[in-house]
């Protein structure tokens, strides 16, 4: 396993004291931890997409915690976030939780609360990543389909019969059968039902 594959807790807090203490706490329970003074540093660290979770101070000079959450969401990075703040107000908490934060902790917090939240976040991250890997895998298989095979596939998962597909595409039924055989093989689908599930995951079903 490469070092970048180990789950890492990223801590962003502008206060060096808070940063160090959290890092030490996490290391004392053998969690891998990287700290950043600003959100900017983190977003430019190339690590933003690595496995792990994010412990984020809400209030920071420049880009605040909620801005970071929004930026990550815009970039399609689905890293789970735990917010910590010196004084959380309810509207802020609601906003953060709505955007998918795992937990919202008010300083000073109980260390067990933070550790629990981190465990929860890392599990969530693992699940997201597994799901993503499956979709990546499917997309890779889908890429090797020819244009014609993709057409056949979209019609197939729409529920059309070979005959219908043949007339739709202006090809012979046997040709469709060949395409169908190829694409099921290339997609490594065990059955038509499985292919439909795959298409669903690839969000192809809506293309027609």
């Amino acid at each position: 396993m490469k070092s970048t594959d180990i789950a890492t807790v990223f801590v962003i807090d502008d206060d060096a004291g808070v940063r160090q203490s959290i890092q030490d706490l996490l290391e004392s329970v053998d969690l891998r931890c990287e700290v950043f003074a600003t959100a900017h540093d983190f977003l430019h660290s190339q690590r933003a997409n690595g496995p792990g979770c994010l412990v984020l101070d809400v209030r920071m000079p420049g880009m605040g915690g909620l801005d970071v959450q929004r930026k990550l969401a815009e970039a399609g990075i689905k890293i789970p976030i735990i917010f910590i703040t010196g004084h959380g107000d309810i509207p802020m908490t609601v906003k953060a939780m709505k955007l998918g934060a795992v937990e919202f902790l008010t300083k000073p917090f109980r260390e067990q609360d933070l550790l629990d939240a981190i465990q929860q976040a890392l599990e969530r991250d693992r699940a997201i990543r597994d799901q993503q890997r499956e979709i990546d895998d499917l997309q890779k298989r889908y890429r090797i389909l020819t244009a014609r095979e993709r057409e056949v596939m979209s019609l197939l998962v729409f529920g059309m019969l070979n005959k219908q597909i043949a007339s739709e595409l202006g090809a012979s039924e046997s040709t469709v059968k060949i395409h169908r055989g190829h694409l099921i093989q290339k997609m490594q689908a065990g059955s038509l039902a499985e292919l439909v599930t795959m298409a669903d995951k690839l969000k192809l079903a809506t293309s027609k």
Partner: protein
Amino acid sequence: MRIPKARMLSFNASLLACLYGVILCARVSALDPDRRITEFHQKFWSEKDGAPSQINALAQTEDGYLWIGSNFGLVRFDGVKFEEYKPQPGVELPSYSIYDLMATPDGGLWIAFEPTGLGFLKEGALTIFTRPGEMPESPVHCFARDREGRIWAGTESGLALRQGGQWTSIGRDWNLRPEMVRALLVDHAGTLWVATVSRVAYLTRGSKVFKLGGSLGRDVTTLAQAGDGRVWLADDHRWEVRPVPIAKEKSAGELPVVLGKGLRELLFDREGALWITRMDSGVVRIRYPEKLKNRGYAPRDPELESFDREAGFSGGDAYKLLEDREGNIWVGCSNGLIRFSYSQVVRVNLPEGYQNVILLAGENSDLWIGSVSERPLLHLRGDALLAEKGPERLCSVFRASDGEIWWGGRTGIWRQRAEEFKFFPLPALAVPDWIYEIVPSDTQGGLWLRLGDVGFVHFVQGLWDLHDWPEGVPSQGGTFPYGPSASYRDPSQRIWLTYTSGQVCVLDGKHVTIYSQRDGLDVGRIKVIRGRGQHIWLGGELGLVSFSKGYFHKVIGAEGEPFGAVSGIIETPDGGLWLNEMRGIVHVPSAEIRQFLGDPNYSVKYRRFDYLDGLPGAAQMSFTNSTAVETSDGRLWFATDNGLARLDPAHLVRNPVPPPVSIVSISNERGHQPLSPTLRFAAGTRAIEIDYAALSLAMPERVVFRYKLEGLDTDWQNVGTRRQAYFTHLGPGPYRFRVIACNNDGVWNDAGASLDFSILPAFYQTTWFRLLCIAAFLGSFGAFYQLRLRHVGRQFKIRLEERTRAEKKFRGLLEAAPEAVVVVNQQGSIVLINAQVERLFGYRRDELLGQGIEILIPPRYRGDHSSHRSHYFVAPKVREMGAGLELFGLRKDGTEFPVEISLSPLETDEGMVVSSAIRDITERKRAEQALRQSEAELLEAQRLTRTCSWKHDLASGRVTVSPEAFRIFGVEPEEDGSKAEFWFDRIHPEDRKRVCEHFQRCEIEKIDYQAEYRIVLPDGTIRYQHSVGRPVLNGSGEVIEFIGTAVDITERRGAEQERERLREAQAALAHINRVSMMGELSASLAHELNQPIGAAITSADACLRWLTRDPPDLERARAAVMRIEKDGTRAAQIIHRLRSFYKKGTPPQRELLDVNEVASEMVTLLRSEANRCAVSMRTKLAAELPKIRADRVQLQQVFMNLMLNAIEAMEEPDGELTIQSQLGQEGELLISVSDTGVGLPAEKAGQIFDAFFTTKRQGSGMGLTITRSILEAHGGRLWVTANAGTGVTFHFTLPTEVEPQV
């Protein structure tokens, strides 16, 4: 334009390779079936190298280019650069997706587009077929070309044949089922093979009836012909690869190879090995498919090599295979393109940790590999690598004449007999160190061992003698700082010892000879010595020398270059030499060596094998004494700094294919020009750039070129690997560009390629234009002669004029005099005047000359004047006229004006004359009048301001005062105020002593005097006075007097006491303002305090966890406690800072402060508040500002008010607050606080400093008023300006000068 030297060298290296190739008889390049797939050189081009992805088709055209068809277009590759193919103008590709490509022997290329459309590309012109009839009825999947040159196409609905530009479907009349064709193949016999979805059929040459090759699986993906002529297929339905079973032939019963799914393509290379691409599993190679006979291959069969992701395959999915004409195998993949080519050098994989190794060839083609690391000795036998127990950390090896092997290590010496090892440790008395070198001391098995840098120890029959020293060998020190670095025993039993200092010591019995640089031994530190028979080779840091007939000769390469550092030497049985050299493995063939031994001045031709040949790194240069050996099977082994390399001289391959050369493009200043046989460039073209290529795909990096531009060059230009020619300053005329190239093994294509072009002459390059130029030149020469004549005449005239001007100069001087000059004779008549006289008196010159001087004098003085004049002539001398009298002149218009006149007598030929200089002094008179006026006004001003001026002469003690002094002191002006005591006595008795002493001090120290004191008026009234004075120094620097003023300040004092009370009120108000501000900030301040407290708690938790671990980590726990301490201190500091704010600061205490420090403190304090409002704070503080005297708390309050205002003004996020400090032009401090907030409406700008004015929802309206009053109390100012962008900037100044003393 000439070729840089570096290129010359690289070219020459290739030239040598060429000569070398001729010398060395080598086999033709191909992928040796005995090598493993991982032992070939493989190169991967991905998208980042410009290669296309999703490669569906590969073809090599006759001109040598590799064509790549992908889902995203057609790309041409010359081994170096990928170029996307763009058709000629006016032709459009039917699609960017390419299904298949086929090159034809006439230089053409067939292209099947997806989903439909055909193309044929030849000589740069693309023909597109999209109309029915021009192309088969359904989409084309594959092509084939038979021996008759007919083109066949496998389509979605069957086979099609191209005849006369039309396609015919081949159906049942040819005995072929019309169904989808998957693959086509024309075999060596000319038989056409067709794989459809259900069967394989074949058509023998000349026949029109297909025969069935057997009923088969449904999913044949490809066909290929093996070396024995049989056609194979890949069936991806049954997951198998096998020969097509021909009915009634023996092979029908053969078992297939079963591989697994994803089979795509088969290829038999020219060595007969079978290559297979598999979708998800890379490339598979079967070295000897003929061994398959009746034997099925299991997936893990060792004969079946897999180059998959685990082995380093990074192409994604492998699709397409191609063997090019040089025998390289190309694989088209989803991620790019891979090439397998033969490499001369093979890397031998060793276990980890074998960085510095020592090599020894065994008896039976085996190899022993020792390491200086703590790694066991390895034994490589065939493919098997065995680790010996025992010997490790080895750095020297010696094979004795009796066959015993000795390994020198770190702590002793190992004896090896066959595969038995015995260890002899160093005696306890010896300093443990490496045994760097082992030298026989006699013929009975005694050994000298070089131990560390100490020197020798003697080892005989298992016994150590630490004090024995080889007789005659120089001891340590001087020119021999270290022991020998290498040794050799020659056939006449002489022992050669080489030293790192560069000398060689030869022991012949008891006779010792020492050789040094004087004897031609010029290789720097010597690393290796080897010999065979009578000739000896020495390698060192500066190359290689040989020894013969008592003299050393350096070996020089054919270009005059010495070799680099050499750490290993092998002399092969044929006499050739192999060097483990700094820049690669060097081979000097035996013929060259013979030439060199015959003539030591001969420069040898050689070949170097480097990374391009597969060498993993540079030669190992560390201290082991054997880095290159030859095993008894003739293979050579070299230690590099990146692993072990193997080279087999018997199996060196040679690429015999001369590379086709082509000219790619030509361009001039206007850009690319289409290539054509009659290329003409417009007049004025000066620079031409030509790109060319040579198509050797095996090792394009070693392809070198020569070119010649006929019409400019007479000889070929050696340009190395450069693929572009650039010519400048070309004149008009016809040119022919010729270029030739050779491949990596120096095989030249002497025909090369050529291109004719011409440059049309510009009008100025034509003959008639040149004639015209000559005529113009002659014409202009004549004109120049005329001009010269005219110039000489003009010079003559100028000289004459100069003479005349000198005469005029004297008269000019008189006329230019600033004063009016009148010359009068004894009779009183005017004889000469200048222009000033005319101007001053208003007469013309002729009106005055000859007149009596009295005409210029007012009538009332005329009488006296004539008598004065007579007196003057009696005793004439230079003097002022009418001393003490006011003199007046009379103008022609009758007006008078004051004058000053000086007289000078002048003796002339016509007797005595008097010259009088007359000055108009009207202006001076007017100034005198003004001075008198201002003195009167000063007196008046002194009276009004109750100020007097005084002067105190120190020598006499006399005092002069202005009249106002008497009024201020209430004494009569008649009294005598000339004594200093008179005035000092009137100072209040309590102040008198202080003032007197201060005055005396100022006198001694020569400084300004300043005092405030009370005086007592005669009526007993007490008044306040402020006096200032300045010392006046004489030439020698002594104080002679003080001058100064004294002011009655009684009224002003009263006002000041009023102001003091106001100041106190303000301080109270400021305190209220501070306290209320703190209230507003309480939330932020709580957060600021929360940070260190929270951090401390977390650290405490962490500390507990470190302590409760098993075992407890005290170091980490201590670090946590130290952080707790730091955070606690931080919290305390915050509270301390706040406390001063709540304190009532009465009275304000001025101290010397650094404004920047105060500003930074406030930034820290308000950080949380700024964060809360998403405001970022920046400071631009000028360095080294002077300190100011101010009240710290009040100044903090100024900053806090302005900063809080700014933060509140910025409601939008991402606001920025900037605090700037700098030194103003008059030495004051200039500080500004700017925001990017809402700004200030113009109509309210005037009101903001008013009390109770506020724009905030909650605000007392006192903040800015208090700020302003604090600043004004400190002598500063506060104002506001609108920013260029958004927001406003508050500026304030603070004076820096120190308060006046006393």
